[in-house]
């Protein structure tokens, strides 16, 4: 055995020694509901299944081979059933502890929406301040740390209480057998997913236009799955209405920095004073290169991605001119909207994909900051037939 093999032996032994206890069988299955329902039921429901059928579809994933693939259940709108799930207004079911990553979004009315990411999917879970307790998110100096444990129990909110929370402005809607509480907010609406009288998910429909939202509210026609990480995206109007927290100068031009995310400590986009509807890319070099703790944020203008960043940005920020070589490409694949962010080959800086939360994971081809396979990543995205042997994630099933 040569020297390096000995060193690797020791390294592996050290890592293995740090292994946590294996989750026990009961623990795994106790997590089934927590980890499956919120991110899967909405999709199936949107495709026209009742809640019960949706659960069944989630559990029984069709397989084409014995490989552990992640094919989405084959459902069609014709499978829709009209059986409504009666609203439960009495007993509340405690939320179970959730392990995952969290990204907070401060909505215009001060409501905080936590986008909790579980495994390869996204489980949006809303925590209403004062309602749920013991939300432990990272440390005081890094509140945006992911990989934390949310202990939100007891969750005592009943449907009636939720109505009270929204000052009576919410409207309960049954779509595909799943109850939703739609609450109009400036710049969009919140669509809460209700199960047994508790909120199991929230859909910030800020990316929907009025016509689409109307379809959701009336239930006349199902819209697609929840927009990809909607709470991390924003329309131009949303950005423009955010408070101006600072100004910066770029090429002699004064830019206003609009806080999208929180109390002004960070900003997403800079809007030029002439309001030409351009979103400047702000990059805090240190944050981007050294400690990326957030997700890709895509700013949307009239349906087109016009800016992005990775992680959260400090103000004052290093204002970088928009680099036209960094392409943010919106593409629709299988009816779902994706945003592909390309960097020039060889720069090794940033390639990422924002995709809808689902169980397919077929396009969960995420390439983090610092990767050097930007070119390969782009190729993988463009050609779903490329597989692992080509250096790509497993091909689309």
């Amino acid at each position, binding site marked *: 055995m040569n020297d390096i093999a000995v060193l690797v032996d020791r390294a592996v032994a050290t890592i293995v020694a740090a292994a946590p206890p294996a989750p026990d069988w009961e623990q795994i299955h106790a*997590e089934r509901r927590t980890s499956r329902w919120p991110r899967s039921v909405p999709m199936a429901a949107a495709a026209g299944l009742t809640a019960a059928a949706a659960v069944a579809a989630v559990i029984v994933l069709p397989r084409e081979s014995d490989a552990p693939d992640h094919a989405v259940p084959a459902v069609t709108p014709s499978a829709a059933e009209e059986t409504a799930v009666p609203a439960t207004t009495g007993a509340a079911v405690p939320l179970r502890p959730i392990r995952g990553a969290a990204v907070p979004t401060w909505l215009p009315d001060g409501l905080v929406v936590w986008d909790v*990411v579980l495994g390869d999917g996204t489980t949006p879970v809303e925590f209403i301040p004062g309602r749920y307790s013991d939300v432990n998110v990272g440390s005081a100096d890094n509140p945006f740390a*992911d990989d934390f444990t949310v202990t939100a129990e007891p969750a005592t909110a009943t449907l009636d209480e939720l109505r009270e929370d929204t000052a009576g402005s919410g409207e309960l809607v049954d779509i595909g057998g799943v109850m939703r509480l739609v609450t109009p907010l400036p710049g969009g609406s919140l669509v809460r997913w209700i199960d047994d009288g508790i909120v199991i998910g929230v859909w910030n429909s800020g990316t929907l236009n009025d016509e689409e939202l109307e379809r959701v509210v009336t239930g006349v026609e199902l819209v697609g799955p929840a927009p990809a990480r909607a709470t991390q995206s924003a329309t131009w109007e949303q950005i423009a209405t955010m408070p101006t927290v600072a100004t910066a100068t770029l090429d002699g031009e004064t830019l206003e920095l609009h806080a999208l995310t929180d109390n002004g400590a960070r900003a997403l986009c800079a809007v030029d004073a002439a309001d030409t509807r351009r979103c400047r890319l702000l990059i805090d070099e240190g944050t981007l290169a050294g400690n990326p703790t957030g997700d890709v944020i895509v700013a949307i203008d009239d349906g087109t991605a016009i800016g992005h960043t990775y992680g959260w940005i400090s103000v004052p920020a290093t204002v970088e001119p928009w680099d036209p070589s960094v392409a943010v490409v919106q593409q629709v694949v299988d009816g779902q909207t994706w945003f592909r962010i390309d960097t020039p080959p060889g720069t090794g800086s940033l390639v990422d994909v924002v995709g809808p939360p689902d169980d397919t994971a077929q396009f969960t081809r995420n390439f*983090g900051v610092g990767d050097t396979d930007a070119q390969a990543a782009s190729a993988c995205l463009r050609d779903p037939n490329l597989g692992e042997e080509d250096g790509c994630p497993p091909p689309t099933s």
Partner: protein
Amino acid sequence: MPNTVPRPDDAAIYRQHADELIRFATVLVGPSGAEDVVSDAMLRVFSSPSWPSVTARRAYLFRAVLREAQMTRRSTQRRLAREIKTADTEAIEAGGGLSADLLRAIKGLTVRQRAVVFMTHWLDESPTAIASALHVTVRTVQRDLADAYRRLEGFLR
């Protein structure tokens, strides 16, 4: 309706391999993400209609964990970056932390390279056996191992 409920022997199979799977996952994604990767992978496996027909179950379980780890690659990279930062600046929790150098070494490998390294150095399996378990070619295993050595060398020496 096929296989909506795990069968009794699924629990036994899981318990038989749980320890080595969590170690495997720890090498793939680090200690803090290992539990979730194993849990999610097992949920997928035991919900799969094709699972009862699988004969090489141990290899299948390893592949499932590997696949799960590959799908969580981005969050894994973020987690490792954060753990490296923490390890640089704060005391490492007794028993639960790894040195920054070691974390950097892990981060420098692809998930599959980590799998190959683990199976070679911990399970002591041959390239042929690893190739069979991971459904890749022997040449791929050899290449991954060589690449992993090359990348690790700078961190470990």
